[in-house]
């Protein structure tokens, strides 16, 4: 299977990438000791998916706290999406937040800045 499944730990979010649906979900806090190792897997999956076909890719994020290297890794991921979007690929990010924590929305909009692909920030119902 080409699906990606990483269980949530205290310092890393749950990650599930569905090859079939073209959806990658990330849920939780991210402050791993080795961000490059953790995000390396995620980035590799995205690169594989983008390279393998021309089907749409959607990211569904419920990320709360992130350390600096995780912030950098997420920006690398958004750069990948921007590149794909630039060559006509259908990519999108939906970033959901707990309405009791408006800060997450503010941070998500910092990430969204200068992203030209569809990037929706919405309160979780």
């Amino acid at each position, binding site marked *: 299977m080409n699906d990606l499944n990483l269980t949530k730990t205290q310092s890393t979010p749950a990650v599930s990438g569905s090859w079939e649906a073209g959806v990658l979900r990330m849920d939780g806090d991210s402050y791993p000791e080795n961000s490059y190792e953790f995000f390396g897997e995620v980035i590799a999956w995205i690169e594989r998916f983008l390279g393998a076909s021309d089907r749409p890719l959607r990211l569904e994020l419920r990320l709360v706290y992130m350390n*600096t290297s995780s912030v*950098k890794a997420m*920006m690398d991921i958004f750069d990948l999406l921007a590149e794909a979007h630039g060559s006509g690929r259908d990519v999108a990010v939906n970033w959901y937040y707990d309405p009791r924590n408006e*800060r997450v929305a503010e941070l998500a909009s910092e*990430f969204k800045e200068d992203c030209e692909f569809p990037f929706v920030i919405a309160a979780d119902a």
Partner: protein
Amino acid sequence: MPEPSQPPGPELSEDALIARIEALLADPAHADNPLRDALAGLYRHSAQQRGRLERLVRISDGYHLFERASNESLAQRYDKQLRRIEKIARISDRYQNSLREVSEALKEAALRDPLTGLGNRRFLIERIKEENQRCARGGGGYTLALGDVDRFKMINDRYGHEIGDQTLCEIAACIRRALREYDLCGRWGGEEFLIVLPETRITDAAQVVERVRAEIERIALPTVREPLAVTASFGLTEYRPGESLSDTVNRADVALYRAKAAGRNRIDSV
């Protein structure tokens, strides 16, 4: 016939010079001139050199263009990376700020009794340890008062826990009202309150605690039956330099026990 020498005139342009040489070489009148061969050779050599120079300039321009493009792309990449780093730092700072605020809120919550809003036992222990250190550095001593609500179990049993909780809140309000600005107080546990009166001898402290006792006596909590009257008893003791926190508290407890034994709603001291 020797060629008449040219009158000195303005310097010829390159094109005009070439045209003139070409005309001289083509003129049959000069076919036998011994300088003609030399001039023709010089003409060919010069044409060759011009061609080389043009090629050299073209190649060199190419390199310049290439350098410039690579410089520009380097500068662009540098600017992009700089903006990226700024963005990472900005986002990261915000995460850090919210974390700091959460940690401050947690710290605040960890030291406060959620029911009465007074400091909790942990808060009291920290502050009393600070007081003891202050005394060890030569600061003045303090008086410690341990207060306990009289017949609190009966209040809870007869009126329910909600009224019991309200009683504790009222008492906390009385303590806050009666104390001086620099006195410390908190909920020691259950229906016990602890008051620290810094730089205060026991006789002066007794007057302050008496104000607290009198305030509590005035509480009339509305209930379904008659308004509920509440009283509390207090045990006072002065901190003795060098002793531990539990030594002081235990002595205050002895005084409190005596106040209870003597009929409650009063202050005793050891």
